[in-house]
């Protein structure tokens, strides 16, 4: 799975031409409407968003303290915490744990961090079979794709594609089986995954929250796959990034109240699973080893800086559900793990603005993302900040820089600007007055390839005003 963010424009064009993808995108999952209804049903929703923002901001401001407290609690509960500075370190730590458990198959609950560090490919290169247990993640795994949405990773697929993939991969099942209904597809996935759960040597989950007060990791799922992933194998690895820390369980309950509502419009996700350390002597089940791998991957250098607010993100996906650009091109066009507005801010921080620069540029700054973000992340402001970094580093395309310079020369001299615009409006008016618009303008091909350009009305407003009033 390669990084294709630098080819965002190409990806976007391909996505717009992909009829099946366009059908899937226009059908959607109804998240926008459901979130709206969920927010309306809860009178304190807006104040909960404030509280959620404050919890995350507070934690980030004191992250060192909470990390220390968390580590102490994890250790006290019999677990082991591993701090990974880079993606490579995280992969190595996870592989070492798996090797020492002589693992051959590993089940995985949904973890975006595993996607971020490319864990599945790495496992396969090292002779370990990873099995995704979230249905959407399983689907993209057997297709060797990246998630196209952070909470609905296979939102770009339709039923027929899933059926074809199942017939291709599940070759041990009868060829003439009926897979016409979503329910039969689900039953087949459930059957296949159940065997894998039982066979797995190690279970890896992500974390929605890591609780400093108790050393607990928490995941929310709608399928219950997280529970089986972390209780059945003898080793449980929690793979998460540093900003998942929250101080207390009470804080978690506040964040949970905005998380599912923002994501899917549910009051709560179906399963909220807490795990604290390995199995204790009187526990009926649970792993005998409990590891937490905490990934930094550049995040700590964002603390206190211009992009720190993105670390509040609780990965609900509301920003992408509401984003007109995401809804036009889908998640794969963004070319890496995190799509949509949160991806447009986070991706350049993680892979470099030289590679991820298109993402914060591909925004109209319409502001819908910020309007719905449960932790009130100023996403457009930070996308603009990336554009400023690009401009400072001369990464902005030469045509844009040149155009800006030319325009700014006039705009900074209002009298000259008045003369230039008077001339421009006159010329455009002369050529355009016949039909009132242009079907093609040489200096605005990007515009006129898709739409007409109106002719101006003649003299500029300022010229007419001065003539009339003086």
């Amino acid at each position, binding site marked *: 799975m390669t990084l294709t963010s630098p080819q965002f*424009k190409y990806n*976007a*064009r391909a996505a*717009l031409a992909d009829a099946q993808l366009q059908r899937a995108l226009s059908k959607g999952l109804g998240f926008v409407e459901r979130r709206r209804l969920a927010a309306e049903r809860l009178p304190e929703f807006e104040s909960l968003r404030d509280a959620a923002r404050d919890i995350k901001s507070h934690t980030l401001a004191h992250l060192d303290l909470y990390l220390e407290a968390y580590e102490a609690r994890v250790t006290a509960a019999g677990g082991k915490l591993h701090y990974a500075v880079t993606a490579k370190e995280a992969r190595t730590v996870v592989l070492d744990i798996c090797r020492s458990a002589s693992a051959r198959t590993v089940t995985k609950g949904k973890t975006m961090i595993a996607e971020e560090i490319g864990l599945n490919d790495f496992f396969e290169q090292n002779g370990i079979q990873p099995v995704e247990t979230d249905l959407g993640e399983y689907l993209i795994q057997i297709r060797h794709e990246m998630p196209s949405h952070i909470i609905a990773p296979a939102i770009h697929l339709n039923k027929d594609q899933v059926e074809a993939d199942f017939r291709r991969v599940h070759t041990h099942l009868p060829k003439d089986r009926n897979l016409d209904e979503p329910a039969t597809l689900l039953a087949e996935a459930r059957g296949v995954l159940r065997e894998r759960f039982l066979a797995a040597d190690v279970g890896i989950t992500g974390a929605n929250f890591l609780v400093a007060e108790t050393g607990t990791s928490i995941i929310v799922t709608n399928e219950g796959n997280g529970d089986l992933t972390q209780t059945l194998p003898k080793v449980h690895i929690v793979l998460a990034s540093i900003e998942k820390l929250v101080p207390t369980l009470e804080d978690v309950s506040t964040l949970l109240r905005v998380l599912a509502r923002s994501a899917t419009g549910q009051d709560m996700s179906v399963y909220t699973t807490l795990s604290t350390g390995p199995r204790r002597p009187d526990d009926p089940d649970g792993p005998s080893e409990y590891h937490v791998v905490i990934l930094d991957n550049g995040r700590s250098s964002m603390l206190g800086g211009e992009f720190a607010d993105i670390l509040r993100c609780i990965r609900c996906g509301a920003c992408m559900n509401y984003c*007109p*650009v995401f809804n*036009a*091109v889908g998640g794969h066009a963004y070319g890496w793990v995190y799509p949509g507005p949160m991806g447009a801010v986070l991706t350049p921080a993680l892979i470099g603005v030289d590679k991820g620069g298109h993402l914060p*540029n*591909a925004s*109209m*700054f*319409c*502001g*819908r993302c910020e*309007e719905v973000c449960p932790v009130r992340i100023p996403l457009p402001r930070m996308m*603009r900040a990336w554009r*400023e970094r*690009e*401009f400072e580093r001369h990464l*902005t395309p030469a045509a*844009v820089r040149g155009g*800006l310079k030319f*325009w*700014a020369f*006039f*705009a*900074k*001299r*209002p*009298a000259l*600007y*008045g003369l230039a*615009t008077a001339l*421009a*409006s006159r010329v455009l*008016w002369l050529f355009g*007055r016949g*039909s*009132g*618009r242009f*079907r093609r303008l040489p200096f605005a091909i*990007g*515009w006129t*390839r*898709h*739409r*007409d*350009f*109106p*002719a*101006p*009305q*003649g*003299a*500029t*407003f*300022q010229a*007419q*005003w001065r003539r009339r009033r003086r």
Partner: protein
Amino acid sequence: MPPPKNRVGLLVTCLVDLMRPVVGFAAVKLLEDAGCTVEVPRQSCCGQPAFNSGDRATARALAEQVIATFESYDYVVVPSGSCGGQVRVHYPELFHGDPNWHPRAERFAAKTYELISFLTNVLGVSNITARYAGTATYHDSCSSLREMGVQAQPRRLLAGVEGLTLAELPDADVCCGFGGTFCVKYPEISNAIVNKKAEAVAATGADTLLAGDLGCLMNIAGKLQRNGRHLAVRHVAEVLAGMADGPAIGEPEPKRAAP
């Protein structure tokens, strides 16, 4: 009730200045009818294109120019939520940490308004006398809606226009895909978004599309026309000022001499 001070500087916006002066004259008429004295100092642009392209130095230079030009007025009024938002929300942000300019930008921002909300919220205009025969639908521009709090005000004033029926546009709050330079930087994506918008507009059955921002209007008008949809597209101020008798955006002029 008219405010005690009402000397208004009209920040006409570069698009209205160049492309559609009638919107400027409509704004002047609406403001004068409401008891304001309107002045138009020589001006160019608020600097938003530079600001959104990451060119902070140019954005600052233009912001300083606008502030210096307009700060002696009691109010600064803009017939655009986008340029209004640039002044009101982003000027203070642009001068953040500057002990001289930041307070100046804050004071300036506080007296800058989008035209329609200025009429209703500041001047208390609740009814205007205008006629327009037709069914109109209204698109909420993103900046008007999210930065300037404009949503009910234009609809309320339009409800008082004789002969006009308002047909609500589904997803009126979703961006039209213009986004300033976005529409030429990512033309295919912009096209997909505006196509959706134009078809939603056409599906309302309205004969007229109104909005408060010329950028969005030019974008949607251009797409409607390319798609062969025959709707008149106008700035809401044209209708409210009773100045909607000339050609709509992108429509040809009747034969007459050049102005």
